[in-house]
């Protein structure tokens, strides 16, 4: 009996894997044409014989060919999925386009990630009760609303794209059937593993889950499903729901649609590409469901959380991401496969060299977000081992070393410095008893650091205090109206912002205009720096003056939009609705605070900030929680991490960590 059960499992896995890798191998030519080594002389041959050779066919000749780069061709018809659809010459390498089809991607990628989910050990069963019937239907509706809202995104590459609900439209019928199928398999798999989800969640940094041809993420769907379950089981936070509904209603009332399409690029799967009413409704609902879903999973998982296991999984995930980054940079074939099967937001790096001598992101979309993750893994291990007396094992020590190497490669100095600052803060808190002395030492430390920095780097406050406004003005289209002086410099070059304000200011974004007026027209109070000048001065040493300057140059909200935002994940409106010199390429705000200002307005940011401060105050005795939160939130100020689903999930985990800490403490006391 046991033997036959093992055989069935083996056979099922074998069939699934065959189904997943099959299209790349068995979908090749009939043998009439011979695949050649891909080089300059054979480009014409492959251009003539498009959709002729499968990836498996050409691999025989090109497995170790490092002159090529494999890229997905989203325009592909179903027949050409997994086949060579084009080859182009470029100065760096030969680009080989592999056909990928929207309908096949959905089923193959989802099945792969479902197989990965089966690797989570089983626990006691979670009874989804009523939700069982709603989950598949809910998933299909969510998918349909998403595709309808972002149809401009799909119409660019899919000729078959048609959302008409008719019995002859097999395009949408197959997508709906696939989503339904995936969700019923998912709910069967997850009910046995539900209580282990938090213990194994760090692996979402390895298996990103972004679909190749959809602006959707597999984990977004999963978390949304948990959000639906949370609503059905009435386990959502009423205060959060009320505030969110109020803010979203205002966003919807004031919403003005357009046909503009935003190239989501590396934000694929967690950012709206369109400005249609149904797309904004989808993202408002999805954001709520995801957040409620994560909190629901944390709350439900609390009695089953094993901190030692989470810690180990954090370290393992960090190492796996790093090692996969190295492997995929060595082989172009593995690079493409890791992109497809791990659901990366963009192709991993194809070199071990850092970009312009700067950062190396491996398979991650953002070196910054990845650096934060590595640093978090290390800090989490150290803090938990210290506070909960969980001894670090030899294996963990080795994993820490690898995570340090990975952190070094991402070159995220902010993560390292904030980690060290955290250590100093802790020592101060632990060694010094009186609050007065603590504050005095802290003040002296900050003062010494600032003075040392000024001495070492020739920091010029006069320049730094204006650099933010200068960078913002530099991207506006006002410079054509400005006259230049005898050495050819205009008012922007000279940072003469008062002169600029005398001109027609309609070409300056409302936010930049506001901060410029605040800077120039507010009368200074002696010894107290102007807030705009202070933020600008701080932005220089942390290398954010240009990025934040560009943000102000582009961010042009109305009063209502400033107060309540454009809506969750609506970076498109900020990006495309105000004409500046930078309207192409993905230039992000480079601060999660600024990103959330765009999404939820100043009201949303302040609500979030006060909530965090309230939690920190309420759990001030909980050192693990305070240290982890401060570390993570400090990093968010200068990074865009919350624009990625993985980092967003980690943020929600950190914010809710006080619940986990309570449980762990309780266990220890018992």
């Amino acid at each position, binding site marked *: 009996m046991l033997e036959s059960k093992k055989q069935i499992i083996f056979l099922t896995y074998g069939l699934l894997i065959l189904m997943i890798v099959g299209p790349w191998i068995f979908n090749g030519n009939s043998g009439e044409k011979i695949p050649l080594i891909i080089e300059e002389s054979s480009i014409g041959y492959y251009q003539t*014989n498009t959709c002729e050779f499968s990836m498996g066919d050409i691999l025989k000749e090109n497995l170790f060919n490092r002159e090529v780069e494999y890229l997905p061709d989203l325009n592909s018809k179903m027949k050409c999925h997994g086949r060579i659809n084009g080859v182009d010459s470029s100065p760096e390498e030969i680009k080989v386009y592999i056909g990928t089809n929207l*309908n096949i991607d959905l089923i193959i990628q989802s099945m792969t990630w479902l197989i990965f989910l089966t690797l989570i050990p089983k626990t006691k069963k979670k009874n989804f009760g009523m939700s069982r019937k709603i989950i598949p239907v809910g998933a299909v509706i969510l998918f349909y609303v998403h595709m309808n809202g972002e149809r401009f995104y799909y119409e660019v590459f899919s000729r078959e794209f048609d959302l008409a609900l008719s019995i002859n439209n097999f395009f949408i019928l197959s997508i709906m*059937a*696939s989503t339904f199928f995936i969700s019923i398999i998912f709910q*069967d798999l997850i009910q046995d593993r539900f209580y282990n989800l938090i213990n194994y969640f760090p692996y979402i940094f390895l298996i990103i889950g972004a679909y190749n041809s959809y602006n959707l993420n597999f984990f977004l769907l999963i978390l949304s499903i948990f959000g639906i379950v949370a609503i059905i089981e009435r386990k959502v936070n009423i205060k959060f729901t009320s505030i969110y509904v109020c803010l979203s209603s205002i966003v919807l009332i004031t919403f003005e649609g357009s046909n503009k399409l935003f190239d989501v690029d590396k934000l694929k799967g967690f950012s709206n590409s369109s400005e249609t009413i149904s797309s904004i409704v989808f993202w408002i609902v999805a954001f709520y469901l995801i957040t409620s879903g994560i909190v629901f999973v944390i709350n439900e998982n609390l009695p089953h959380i094993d901190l030692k296991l989470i810690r180990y999984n954090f370290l393992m995930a960090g190492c796996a991401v790093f090692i996969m980054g190295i492997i995929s940079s060595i082989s172009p074939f593995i690079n493409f496969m890791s992109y497809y099967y791990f659901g990366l937001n963009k192709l991993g790096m194809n070199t071990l060299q850092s970009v312009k001598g700067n950062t190396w992101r491996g398979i991650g979309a953002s070196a910054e977000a990845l650096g934060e993750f590595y640093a978090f893994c290390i800090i989490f291990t150290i803090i938990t081992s210290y506070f909960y007396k969980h001894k670090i094992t030899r294996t963990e020590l080795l994993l820490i070393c690898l995570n340090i190497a990975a952190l070094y490669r991402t070159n995220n100095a902010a993560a390292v410095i904030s980690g060290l600052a955290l250590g100093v803060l802790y020592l101060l808190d632990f060694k010094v008893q009186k609050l007065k002395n603590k504050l005095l030492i802290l003040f002296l430390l900050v003062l010494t650091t600032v003075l040392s920095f000024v001495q070492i780097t020739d920091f010029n406050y006069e320049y730094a205090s204006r650099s933010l406004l200068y960078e913002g003005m530099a991207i506006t289209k006002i410079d054509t109206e400005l006259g230049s002086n005898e050495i050819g410099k205009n008012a922007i070059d000279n940072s003469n912002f008062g002169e600029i304000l005398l001109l027609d200011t309609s070409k300056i974004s409302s936010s930049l205009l506001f901060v410029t007026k605040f800077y120039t027209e507010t009368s200074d109070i002696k010894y107290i720096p102007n807030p705009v000048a202070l933020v600008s001065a701080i932005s220089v040493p942390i290398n954010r003056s240009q990025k934040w300057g560009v943000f102000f140059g582009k961010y042009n909200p109305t009063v209502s939009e400033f107060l309540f935002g454009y809506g969750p994940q609506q970076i498109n409106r900020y990006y495309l609705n105000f004409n500046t010199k930078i309207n192409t390429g993905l230039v992000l705000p480079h601060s999660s605070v600024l990103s959330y200002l765009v999404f939820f307005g100043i009201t949303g940011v302040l609500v979030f900030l006060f909530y965090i401060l309230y939690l920190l105050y309420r759990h001030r005795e909980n050192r693990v929680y305070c240290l982890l939160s401060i570390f993570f939130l400090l990093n968010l100020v200068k990074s865009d991490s919350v624009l990625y689903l993985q980092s967003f999930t980690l943020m929600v985990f950190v914010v809710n960590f006080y619940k986990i800490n309570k449980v762990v403490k309780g266990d220890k006391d018992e």
Partner: protein
Amino acid sequence: MDELIKTICGNSNEVFDPVKIGNNPNFVFINDPNFETIILYDADANIINVNSWLECANYVNGGWSNELIDLFNGEKYLFIMTILGIVSYSVIKYIKKRKNKSA
């Protein structure tokens, strides 16, 4: 492209000059009785019979092909296969459930 023309239309001593044909709105393809008629299809499954090598080369150059790739309705097959998958999965699950109950 030359390779593709050769594959679909065959070899010929004629010289195909797309610019010359494109610049002359009154250009007429003359039927070649020695040329076996070839059926070509475009992306929308339109059909054309070409009766000379030059005519064939001109259409192939414009993206026509002798294979009707687009009539393959992959989505339909995928839909049927997925439905079969759902049914099989549900049946297996049902049998398993009954087996567990009886055990």
